[in-house]
């Protein structure tokens, strides 16, 4: 099933990963790979655009937790935008909004860096 997609858009000072479909234990490795690639290229300002994402499980949340320390140690951050209410509810349930900047629009996310 072509059930997860990640598209990358680079700007001068940040990169956007646009994710879509289902982010679960099966598809999480694809996102991991995309973020690892950004880190390898020393692109530490990362925006995750959730607009096309329909589902997330703890395996998906784990991807962000697995990288955030390294990214912040390199003066970067992961900002998040475009979550639908269903996705946001999962983040909220676990208190993630205290750890990550979660905004509606991509341009608000850019301003957060």
């Amino acid at each position, binding site marked *: 099933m072509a059930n997860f997609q990640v598209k990358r858009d680079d700007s001068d000072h940040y990169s956007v990963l646009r994710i879509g479909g*289902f982010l*679960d234990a*099966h598809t999480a490795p694809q996102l991991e790979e995309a973020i690892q690639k950004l880190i390898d290229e020393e692109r530490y300002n990362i925006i995750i655009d959730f607009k096309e994402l329909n589902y997330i*499980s*703890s395996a998906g949340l784990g991807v962000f937790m697995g990288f955030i320390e390294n990214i912040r140690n390199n003066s970067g951050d992961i900002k998040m935008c475009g979550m639908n209410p269903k996705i946001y509810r*999962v983040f909220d*349930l676990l208190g993630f909004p205290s750890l990550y900047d979660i905004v509606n629009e991509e341009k608000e996310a850019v301003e957060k860096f």
Partner: protein
Amino acid sequence: MIAKSVHEYKLRIPSQTDNLELIRVFVAKLAEKVGFDSDDIGKIELAIDEACTNVIKHAYNGDRSKPLDIAIQIDFQKFAIVVTDQGKGFNPKKVNIPNMDKYLAELRVGGLGIYLMKTLMDEVDYDIKPGVKNQVRMVKYFLDKNSKIVQTEKA
């Protein structure tokens, strides 16, 4: 819509992550059929995903040919999901339920599955017999408002 008797739905599939979507679709459709709203359907979908992901990740040391069993028992008051594996088992009492403030402050990774299941469902109980039958039973009551009362009365 729900008859007084118990309706049981059983599913046995190979324990592979690429079956998680199929499991979610099946359980969500059934939850929709019995009348849960989309908020509860989302909770049930996530809880079953976490339970099945644990079987796939932890029960069989990655052997994808081993079975993952799901049973859904529906009666007039509740929707019960039983996920069973025949793997190595574990001691649920020894699993630390994370303190989320600490968890987030320390930037920890993993260990959120069982916590999520307990947060999303009204009841979560383990029954572990390593190598024979390791089961988690998760219940959601139909009357959301009363669910905690019912739960307390039963506990």
